[in-house]
C-alpha cells in the first residue's frame, strides 16, 4: 500500500506509535519508582 509515498505514510505511523509506546514505557518506569 501507498506506492511512492510509503516513506511519508509509514514514517507517520511508525513515529506516532513509537512515541506513544515510549510514553507508556517511561510512565511505567515512573510508576515503579513512585511505588519504591
Amino acid at each position, binding site marked *: 500500500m501507498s506506492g511512492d509515498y510509503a516513506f511519508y*505514510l509509514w514514517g507517520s505511523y511508525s513515529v506516532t506509535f513509537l512515541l506513544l509506546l515510549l510514553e507508556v514505557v517511561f510512565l511505567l518506569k515512573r510508576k515503579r519508582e513512585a511505588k519504591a
Partner: protein
Amino acid sequence: MKWFWYASPQTFYPLAGRMAPWFAAAAALLCIAGLYVGLVVAPSDAQQGEVYRVIYIHVPAAWMSMFIYVVMAGWAAFGLAFNTRLSGMMASALAPTGALFTAIALWTGSLWGRPTWGTYWVWDARLTSELILLFLYLGFIALQAAIDDPRRADRAGALLAIVGAVNIPIIHYSVVWWNTLHQGASVSVTRAPTMAAQMLTGLLLMALAFWMYTIAVTLVRVRCIIREREG
C-alpha cells in the same frame, strides 16, 4: 456520584487505579478498529491516493493537542480559583501527553505536507500557532520542573496555562481568519460530512482511541504525582 469526595487526592487515587485499565483496554480496541477501517476498509482518495491515510493519526492528534490544552487550562484555573490540590496535579499529568500529541500532529502534518504541498513546513498561521502550542506545553512542563514547592509550581504553571489558552481559538480559526496553505476543517459538527462514510468512521474511531489513551495515561500519571507529592 460523590464529586467532592473524589476531589481529594487520597480518595481519587484508588478510583484512578481502578479506571485506568478499562480506558487502556478501550484505547487498544478502538485503535485496532480505527486502523482496520482507516488502512483496510476506507477507499483511496481520488486526488491524494494512499498518502491521505496520514489523516487517521494527524487529525485526531491535532484535535487532542487542542482539547488536552483546554482541559489542562481548565484544571489549572479551577486549582487557582479554589486552591484544590488535585487540580494542579491533573494539569501536570495532562501536559506531557498534550505535548506528545502536538509533536505527533506537527510531525505527521509535515510528512503529509511534503507530497501534497511540496514542502515539509511553511510558516502559515495554522502550522505556526500549532508550533506555539508545543512551546506552551514545553514551557508549562519546564516551569513546573523549575520550582521545588509543588503548590507554587502549580500556581505558576496555572498562570501560564490560562494565558496560553488564547492560542487555542487562534489555532482553530486560523484557517478562517487568514489565507493559509493548510486546508479548512475536515470535519464539522455544523456541516454534513464531505468525506466517505468509511473515512469518517476511521477518523472518529482513531479520535476516540486517542481520547481513551489520554485518559488512561493521565490517570496513571496523576497516581504517580499523588504518590510523589503525598507519599
